[in-house]
């Protein structure tokens, strides 16, 4: 009748499973995976990201095929099939949704008080945080890759109607797909870092959005230092990685970002966001 009470009086710490052994990182990862997939909001958010990436790509490609007949040769030459696959509005949505997913993964656990139970079970907070970051990064990368591949395919299939499509082997195509795919985990990790610092979901979402979307708009490229700052922004880096050739001759860009610099921005933000998340969660009492 009482399976939970199998202990004989005076027995030491022998219980279920092994007790003295160090906690295994793969167990923590598995636990975080259970947490993530057991929330409906995860499915909704990731589903929305996929649907919006594909849907907005189709919409942009259809707009091109509809107007194609009336376009001048110059307009046609400026058309970017990569831009149709990954239109700005899709990336805006991806950044909003993915950073919210990251924010809620950490902020929700602080807000609900669940971190207290989590840390009473696993006192090594840094390891818990690292497992959470790893699970979130893996899942959002998978969604990003899936969404970007589907968006590219759908857009190019539609553009085939007017012969305006590009192939994945064309210069810059794979780079644009990869950059768009990785924007999902990048935004999610920035969301977790902000939430780990702020520890409340709603203000963290606002802060992450401001950091990702509003801050770059405040920076122009007229001065060398403002250009450098702008290039260090994730959205600006994504825009640079989406450029397949040289900018049109009438646009003057004295301080144009490099492709390597843009990838560096991606890597830097990812690394800093992951480390900040782990350090902040480790430091603060739940």
């Amino acid at each position, binding site marked *: 009748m009482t399976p*939970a009470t199998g202990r*004989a*009086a005076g027995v*030491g710490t022998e*219980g279920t499973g092994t007790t003295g052994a160090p906690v295994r990182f793969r167990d923590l990862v598995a636990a975080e995976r259970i947490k993530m997939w057991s929330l409906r909001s995860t499915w909704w958010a990731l589903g929305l990201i996929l649907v919006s990436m594909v849907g907005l790509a189709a919409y942009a490609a259809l707009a091109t095929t509809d107007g194609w007949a009336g376009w001048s040769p110059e307009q046609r030459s400026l058309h970017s099939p990569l831009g149709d696959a990954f239109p700005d509005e899709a990336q805006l949505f991806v950044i909003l949704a993915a950073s919210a997913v990251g924010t809620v993964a950490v902020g929700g656990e602080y807000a609900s008080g669940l971190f207290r139970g989590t840390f*009473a079970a*696993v006192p090594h907070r840094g390891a818990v945080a690292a497992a959470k970051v790893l699970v979130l990064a893996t899942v959002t990368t998978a969604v990003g890759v899936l969404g970007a591949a589907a968006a590219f395919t759908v857009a190019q299939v539609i553009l085939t109607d007017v012969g305006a499509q590009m192939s994945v082997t064309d210069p810059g195509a794979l780079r644009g797909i990869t950059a768009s795919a990785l924007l999902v985990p990048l935004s999610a990790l920035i969301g977790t870092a902000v939430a780990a610092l702020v520890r409340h979901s709603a203000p963290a979402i606002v802060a992450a959005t401001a950091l990702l979307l509003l801050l770059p708009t405040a920076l122009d490229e007229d001065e060398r230092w403002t250009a450098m700052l702008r290039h260090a922004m994730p959205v600006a880096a994504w825009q640079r990685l989406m450029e397949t050739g040289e900018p049109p001759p009438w646009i003057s860009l004295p301080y144009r970002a490099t492709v390597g610099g843009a990838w560096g921005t991606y890597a830097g933000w990812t690394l800093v966001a992951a480390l900040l998340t782990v350090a902040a969660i480790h430091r603060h009492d739940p």
Partner: protein
Amino acid sequence: MIALNALTKRYGRTTAVDDLTLTVRPGHVTGFLGPNGAGKSTTLRIILGLTAPTSGSATVDGVRFRDHPRGLHHAGALLDAGDVHGGRNARAHLSALARSNDIGRGRVEEVLREVGLAAVAGRRIGGYSLGMRQRLGIAAALLGDPPVLLFDEPFNGLDPAGVRWARDLLRRLAAQGRTVFVSSHLMSEMEHCADRLVVLGRGRLVAEESLAAFAARGGRADVAVRTPDPAALAAVLTAEGAGVRREDGGLLAVTGLAADRIGDLALAHGLPLHELTTRTASLEEAFMDLTADSVEYGGRPAAPVAAGEQR
């Protein structure tokens, strides 16, 4: 076993826990009592390594809790039934905790049955009553079959049957040789399940003793006697050296004589008795007396209270 040594926690100028030295031993249910704001929850959080003490130490089985790699095997805790994500179901909530400590799925089902939530384990916690959440918190504490169990106000929100179930469970866990440490701000809850009491007031240790020793503090053990002729009986008892005090409803409160002796005397003098009750001091009163000076958020009567009960 839980050992606190000169444990102190300050938040700015407020001292939540003040130089607390204490040992909570296995094999007993130890009640952890104190008014609201006495520092009970802070102490429990420090024991679990969730809050760092300002000075002093807290150990679970001789080791600082944060140095235990897998917490659930060393101490199970219910701190706040609300510390769950309402969007998850009970089974997923417990499975994630269990998995982090390498505890199998079978154990999750066992504790769900143990607390009576097996039938609703697939429902979202958001729809649970407070009583169901308390049961879920208790299930989480039991997951690792730990030698030490900490419960913060576990009876909150439980219905009478649930309170009885929880009491029996706590006693059973102690009987199995575990250390069971249960906080409450209501003495009446502890009266029926604790063997030992630790009383905290304003972060300081006020009492640490057995339930019986604590009850004796009240010092108001007497015998209540009801008779149709109280004046005659009072005279007889006073002549025998007893202290007699009249209470409302013609009741006599007799001190200094045992009930059997009072009955014998009444019979010898031909006085009928309608009631003869030995009264021990109420634990509630002993608790109130002890913590009266250390109530953090005590209310003051707005207007003078009618004479009688004012202290």
